[in-house]
C-alpha cells in the first residue's frame, strides 16, 4: 500500500500536480532517503518510456492516416495482393533479362544437342569398318590393263567389255537360279553391279532386296550367260548357332578367293544388336558379304563389318535374316533356299572345293 502511495506521489510530482507544500516535503524525503530517491528516478524513467511509446503510437497512427488519404488519391501506390504484385513487378522489371537468358538457354541447349548427336554418330561410324575394298589399287588396275592388252594382242576376242570397278566385296548363292546374298553397304550407291566367279566369268546383277538396318541385300544375276547350279552344297539354317562353334569363311579380300577360320564369340553384334553374331576371325576389306559356314556345311551368317579399335572382333548378320528378307521380296520366281548340306561330313579341303564355285566377287561402280 505504501508503494502505491509512493508511486502516486512520484507521478503527481512529475506532472506538477502537487501543491508547493507537498512538493517541498517530497523533495526533502528524496534527499534523506536514498532508496526512495532511487525508486523515484527509476519510476520516472519508466513512465517516460511508457509515454514515449504512447506518443510513438499516436504519431504512427497519424502517419497511417495520411498514407491512407494519399493512397486514395493515388499518390502512393496501393497495396496489392502481395505475391501477385511481386510477380508482376518482377516480370516488368526483369522482362528483358529473362528474354536474353531464355535465348541463351535455347542456343546452348540446341548446340549441345547437335554436338552430342554429331559426336555419337561419328563414334558409331568410327568403330565399325565395313569390309568393302573400295579402293582397288592403282597397280592392280594397271596390271589388268596390261593383261587386257596382252589378251587382245594374243587371243581372238574377250568375252565381255572391260568393266572398271571401284569397289570389291563378296557374295554367295542362296538359290541356284542366280540369287546372291551380300551386304547392303556393298551395293550402296552403286550404279552397275557385276558378280565374278573364281574362274573370272563376269555376270551382270541387279539388287532385288536392300535392307540398310540389318545390312542385308539380295542380288539377282540377270546375265543370260549364267548357267544355273542345280544343287547348292551348303544349307541355310533358321535356328541360331551356339557359342564356340568353329566357323570358316571364303571371300575376296584380293583378286582370288581367300579362306579364313575362327569361332563364334557372341550371340549379339555391335552394341547388343541381336540381328548379328560376333565372331572371331581374321578378315580384311573385301570379305564383306562372305558366308560364315560351320563344320556341318550350314551358312549361319554373312560377314558385315569389324570393330575398328579391337582385333578380330567381326560382326556377321544371322542367317535367319535371309528368311525374313524372302518374305518381303516379291519376284516372279520363287526363291528356294537350300535345306540339305551335301558337304556335311567331308573334310575341309573338299568342302571348300565345293563351296568356292558358289562364292562370288561382287564388283560395282
Amino acid at each position, binding site marked *: 500500500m505504501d508503494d502505491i502511495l509512493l*508511486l502516486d506521489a512520484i507521478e503527481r510530482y512529475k506532472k506538477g500536480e502537487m501543491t508547493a507544500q507537498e512538493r517541498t516535503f517530497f523533495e526533502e524525503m528524496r534527499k534523506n532517503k536514498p532508496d526512495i530517491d532511487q525508486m523515484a528516478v527509476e519510476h520516472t524513467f519508466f*513512465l517516460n*518510456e511508457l509515454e*514515449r511509446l504512447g506518443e510513438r503510437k499516436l504519431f504512427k497512427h*497519424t502517419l497511417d492516416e495520411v498514407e491512407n488519404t494519399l493512397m486514395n488519391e493515388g499518390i502512393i*501506390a496501393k497495396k496489392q495482393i*502481395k505475391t501477385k504484385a511481386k510477380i508482376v*513487378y518482377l516480370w516488368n522489371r526483369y522482362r528483358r533479362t529473362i528474354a536474353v537468358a531464355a535465348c541463351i538457354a535455347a542456343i546452348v541447349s540446341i548446340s549441345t544437342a547437335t554436338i552430342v548427336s554429331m559426336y555419337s554418330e561419328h563414334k558409331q561410324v568410327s568403330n565399325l569398318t565395313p569390309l568393302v575394298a573400295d579402293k582397288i589399287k592403282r597397280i592392280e588396275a594397271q596390271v589388268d590393263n596390261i593383261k587386257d592388252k596382252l589378251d587382245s594382242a594374243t587371243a581372238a576376242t574377250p568375252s565381255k567389255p572391260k568393266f572398271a570397278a571401284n569397289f570389291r566385296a563378296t557374295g554367295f548363292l542362296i538359290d541356284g537360279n542366280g540369287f546372291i546374298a551380300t551386304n547392303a553397304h556393298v551395293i550402296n550407291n552403286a550404279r552397275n553391279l557385276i558378280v565374278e566367279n573364281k574362274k573370272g566369268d563376269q555376270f551382270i546383277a541387279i539388287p532385288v532386296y536392300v535392307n540398310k538396318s540389318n545390312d542385308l541385300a539380295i542380288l539377282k544375276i540377270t546375265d543370260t550367260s549364267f548357267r544355273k547350279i542345280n544343287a547348292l552344297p551348303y544349307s541355310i539354317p533358321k535356328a541360331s548357332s551356339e557359342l564356340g562353334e568353329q566357323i570358316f569363311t571364303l571371300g575376296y579380300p584380293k583378286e582370288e578367293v581367300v579362306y579364313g577360320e575362327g569361332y563364334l564369340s557372341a550371340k549379339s553384334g555391335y552394341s547388343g544388336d541381336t540381328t548379328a553374331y560376333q565372331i572371331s576371325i581374321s578378315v580384311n576389306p573385301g570379305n564383306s558379304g562372305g558366308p560364315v559356314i560351320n563344320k556341318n556345311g550350314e551358312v549361319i551368317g554373312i560377314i558385315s563389318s569389324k570393330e575398328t579399335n579391337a582385333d578380330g572382333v567381326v560382326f556377321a548378320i544371322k542367317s535367319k535374316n535371309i528368311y525374313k528378307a524372302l518374305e518381303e521380296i516379291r519376284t516372279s520366281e520363287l526363291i528356294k533356299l537350300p535345306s540339305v548340306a551335301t558337304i556335311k561330313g567331308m573334310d575341309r579341303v573338299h568342302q571348300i572345293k565345293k563351296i568356292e564355285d558358289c562364292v562370288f566377287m561382287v564388283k560395282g561402280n
Partner: protein
Amino acid sequence: MNILNQEQILLQGLAANDKRAVETIYRENYLTIQSFIVKNNGYPDDARDIFQEAMIVLYEKVCSGSFELTCQIKTYLYSVCRRLWLKRLQQMQRYNPSAENIEEVVSIEEELDAHEKRNADLMVMESALGKIGEPCKSLLEAYYLQKKSMPEIAEFFGYTNADNAKTQKYKCLVRLKKIFFAQYKND
C-alpha cells in the same frame, strides 16, 4: 516568407502531431524516396516502410528539441531514407554497392544509431505490455497512452469509483514495471 520559415512551421506542426503538417511533408517528399528505392532493388511497399521510419526519426528529433535546421527537410529525409535502405539491403544481402557512391549529404549516422536504440527500448516496453495480460493492458493503455481521465476509465472498465480504478491501475503498473526492468536489464 522564405523557405526556412515555412519549414520551421512545418516542423512545429510535426512535433505537435498535426495531421496537416505530416500530410504536407508526405506530399512533397514521398515520390522522390519511392523512386530512389525502386531504382535500388526495392518495391513500393519497401518505400512506404522506409519513409514511415524516416518520418519517425524526424519526429523524435523535433520532439527532443535538439533539431537545428541545418538543411531542408527534403535533404534530411533523403539522407535518412538512403541510410535506412542501404542497411536493410545489407540485412537482406541484396546489397548494391552502386548506391554507396552517392555522396553523403547530411551526416545522420549517430542519430540513426540513437534511433535504433530507442526503437529497441520501445520494443521492450511493448512486449512487456503484451505480457501483463487483460484487463491490465487496456487499463494502462487507456491511462498512459490514450491519456484518458480516471473517472472515464472507471466507467469504461466498470469500477465503482475512480479511486478503485486508480488502485487497480497501480497494481498493474507495478507488474508491468517488474516485467519491463527484467527484460531491460537482460538486454
